[in-house]
């Protein structure tokens, strides 16, 4: 990841946090007094409640349950963590991600806000300045727009503006992407918008296991992370190894190995690309699926490693084509693999129109056939 900001810069930022925390000793603390040091729940450490000899703690959870568990454990481990947003308290969230958290951790740490996203993010900035670790939720992707000024001008910049004195350890949860036949403003894909903002990190989990570990990891960062939850994948269950043995939350991840072509995806599109890879195998095409996971910073090394091997790449996303994150992925692949690429990187994406609600979303979201067509175009390409 030489050309791009890497996760290793988190170390420097983490030191900043400690320095800032030391200067903020006079800040009021909530409930149990904190020593001013951030307790970072280590994503790869065994869960403390598990006996050492219990073996791998693999459970079958939905992403909804996995996220709820991750939030609960974060609130448990980090006395400065707080959850705020519309209906996250008493109701437990419209997707029930925060179900039961207010009962367990009280109204001071898990609370409902007014219906004003700029206020939710503004409050989070203030809380972060005062030494807390807010985990705000905007109820739907489309409602992040009213908070864009706070996200870009405050959340992304405060650490820079204050020369590292006021880091913004904010984890902004955004139920994202389409797939649930919801009305307007409830199916947006904002990753390119957030990834373009200096100071923000952007991540999207593709499975319950990823969701559990990436949320705990993100919540432990000293920098703001936009956490894009694929809402169409909230309910499907999958194995979650809460101990996280051998799991690394950083960079991209190969979901399925293959030789002929790399499918690059994130969020809800990962599961679809795995389906496509299985279908392509019937035709004798061996496809590698790369779950990008971090959309800022992008793991350019993993992209290069995969496409150097397969020499062909298709990137799939739900957001519109023009200036979508697929363009960045294509540019990175081209830059690293130009000499060996068999064909230009193909993009299979949504269209350059506002996200269509309801029944039309099947026509908009890349489906299996559109992805297969994209693969075919790459396979057919001949130079000259």
């Amino acid at each position: 990841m030489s050309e791009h900001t890497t996760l290793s810069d988190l170390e420097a930022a983490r030191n900043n946090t400690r320095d800032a925390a030391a200067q903020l000793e006079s800040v009021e603390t909530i409930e149990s007094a904190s020593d001013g040091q951030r307790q970072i729940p280590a994503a790869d450490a065994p869960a403390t409640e598990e006996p050492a000899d219990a073996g791998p703690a693999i459970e079958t959870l939905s992403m909804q349950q996995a996220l709820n568990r991750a939030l609960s454990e974060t609130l448990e481990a980090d006395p400065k963590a707080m959850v705020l947003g519309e209906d996250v308290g008493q109701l437990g969230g419209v997707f029930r991600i925060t179900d039961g958290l207010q009962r367990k951790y009280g109204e001071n740490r898990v609370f409902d806000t007014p219906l004003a996203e700029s206020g939710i993010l503004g409050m989070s900035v203030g809380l972060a300045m005062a030494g807390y670790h807010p985990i705000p939720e905007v109820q739907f992707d489309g409602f992040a727009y009213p908070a864009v000024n706070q996200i870009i001008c405050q959340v992304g910049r405060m650490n820079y503006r204050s020369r590292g004195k006021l880091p913004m350890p904010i984890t902004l949860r955004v139920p994202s992407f389409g797939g649930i036949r919801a009305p307007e403003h409830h199916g947006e894909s904002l990753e390119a918008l957030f990834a373009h903002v200096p100071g923000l990190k952007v991540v999207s989990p593709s499975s319950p296991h990823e969701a559990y570990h990436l949320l705990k990891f993100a919540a432990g960062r000293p920098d703001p992370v936009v956490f894009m939850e694929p809402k169409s994948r909230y309910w499907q269950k999958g194995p979650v190894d809460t101990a996280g043995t051998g799991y690394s939350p950083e960079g991209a991840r190969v979901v399925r190995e293959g030789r002929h072509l790399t499918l690059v995806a994130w969020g809800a599109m990962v599961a679809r690309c795995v389906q496509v890879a299985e279908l392509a195998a019937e035709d004798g095409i061996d496809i590698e699926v790369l779950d990008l996971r971090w959309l800022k910073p992008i793991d350019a090394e993993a992209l290069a490693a995969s496409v150097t091997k397969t020499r062909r790449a298709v990137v799939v996303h739900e957001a519109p084509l023009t200036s979508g994150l697929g363009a960045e992925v294509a540019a990175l692949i081209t830059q690293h693999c130009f000499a060996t690429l068999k064909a230009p990187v193909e993009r299979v994406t949504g269209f350059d129109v506002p996200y269509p609600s309801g029944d039309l979303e099947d026509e908009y979201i890349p489906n299996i056939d559109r992805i297969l067509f994209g693969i075919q175009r790459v396979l057919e390409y001949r130079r000259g």
Partner: protein
Amino acid sequence: MAEISFPLPDLGEGLIEATVLEWLVAEGEQVERNHPLVEVETTKSAVELPSPQAGKVVRVYGEPGDIIKVGEPLIVFQVPDDTAGIVGTVPQEQAPKRRVRLTANLDED
């Protein structure tokens, strides 16, 4: 299973309360969206309130003749945990379908 409480909605024209005339559903009953729930009377008129959602009725508040203020609990539903939320539907997992076949000559690899 989760419980969702539905408060007496703003019935318009600055009305702040309504009197329960008759419950049209009973506790334990499964109702569909838009099914009539209750007849209430305001100072303007008597109206039937349709159900805002599908679910099993867990509790109803107020006997006929009782006054309920706007915003106070009216009815509580029990809904499965996989209800999509306030909008949208839970996507169904389907076997992948395809119409496109891949053809490639990979010999030169």
